[in-house]
């Protein structure tokens, strides 16, 4: 069995989805933790220090390459699997199977993922591109990321888009978290019950943590 055979089999492709998914879940924890500095109520000093470190230190910059690789693998593999799965049934049913045994969000991972991807593009263009392009060698003067957030989140529509993006992410995680562990082989009932509980809690906490950031700026809860 070659590595290629392993990772191109249907189970192998799922393993890639699972490993990258768990990696991205870990990233969300770091991202939420760092962004929580906006609530330090110090005019963004701590937050900007964090942003400066992430952009100017070599370690997070190298890790960032791995992060992008994780995102790309997860996204490309997901679309390839979705296309392949759709092709497995060329004639559909007249009466659809519906909700028996499965949740709507578990059947809509591709749709939810696409919404998260669109949100991600908007999100990167709001913060990551302007921030990174002004850090180090490109466009000189580093921007004040806290002030940028304040400005971006003064627009109600942007806040609504961010909240919808966070809700999609929450549902994506509600299935993705526990599914990822099933894929790497967690079949014991007691672990599965525990991971399902952690998964649902994590989805809600992450969704609320990220959604509260634009809401806090819009409502003036951060200073």
């Amino acid at each position, binding site marked *: 069995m070659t590595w290629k055979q392993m990772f191109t089999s249907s189970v192998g492709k799922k393993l890639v989805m699972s490993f990258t998914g768990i990696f991205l879940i870990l990233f969300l924890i770091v991202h939420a933790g760092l962004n929580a500095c906006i609530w330090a109520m110090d005019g963004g000093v701590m937050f900007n220090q964090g942003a400066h470190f992430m952009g100017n230190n070599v370690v997070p910059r190298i890790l960032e390459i791995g992060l992008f690789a994780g995102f790309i693998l997860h996204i490309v593999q997901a679309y390839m699997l979705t296309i392949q799965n759709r*092709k497995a049934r060329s004639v559909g*049913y007249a009466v659809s*199977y519906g909700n028996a045994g499965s*949740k709507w969000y578990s059947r809509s991972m591709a749709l939810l993922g696409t919404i998260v991807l669109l949100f991600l593009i908007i999100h990167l263009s709001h913060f990551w591109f302007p921030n990174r392009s002004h850090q180090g060698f490109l466009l000189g003067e580093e921007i004040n990321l806290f002030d940028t957030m304040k400005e971006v989140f003064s627009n109600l529509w942007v806040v609504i888009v961010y909240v919808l993006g966070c809700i999609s992410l929450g549902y994506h995680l509600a299935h993705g978290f526990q599914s990822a562990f099933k*894929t790497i082989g*967690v079949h014991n009932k007691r672990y599965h019950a525990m991971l399902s509980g952690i998964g649902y809690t994590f989805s809600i906490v992450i969704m609320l943590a990220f959604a509260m950031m634009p809401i806090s700026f819009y409502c003036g809860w951060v200073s």
Partner: protein
Amino acid sequence: MEHYNMNLNLKVWRQKNTKSKGEFKMYRVENISSEMSFLEMFDVLNEQLIHEGEEPVAFDHDCREGICGMCSMYINGKPHGPWQANTTCQLHMRAFKDGDTIVVEPWRANAFPVIKDLVVDRTSFDRIIQAGGYISVNTGNAVDGNALPINKDKADASFAAAMCIGCGACVAACKNSSAMLFLSAKVSHLALLPQGEPERHSRVINMVAQMDKEGFGSCTNTGACEATCPKEISISNIARLNQEYLVASLTAEK
């Protein structure tokens, strides 16, 4: 339960052969007893069609006791009809009311091409089993059944997985047309027992490779298969299969 008769409208998929394009046809059956099985109701329909000089509806059936895995109708949006843990042959007409319209379709998956009407070709399952769903047994006298101690929980889990009758309802219900519940049952019931140990790794690798070759989709753990399975095969078998595959492929020598 009170016995009653009913008149029904049937919307049935008719398809001449694999290559032809099928279509739904409407039929009416009258005086159907609530005590009949769904297949007996189809027998009545076919008698009627033969009487009228029409081609009877082709459908798979064998034991009509719920244990052979041959019956395969997708009834009103659910494989084997509305009852839980049940096969089409054991679905009784008391599940329906007078005047109901029942939509009957074949399993839909490219790996299960329609042969005729409601009959689909499920030999892809046979080929998956041939790829590794066996154990090596020495010739000679049969070994005493209790010679080998086996953990009770594992034996129970193995028997529960061995309940799979290979009907294909899991594939029919899955949005990805994945055969993972079937495959996981076949891999699990052998992997859990010491008798399955010699081929444990090659079995899972070869059976997954054959499943992929047959054109089934990939599992996304939605749980629709488990909910529709007439033998209530647990989805935890799929996670066990994933673990078997991961260990087998990571520890392979070549």
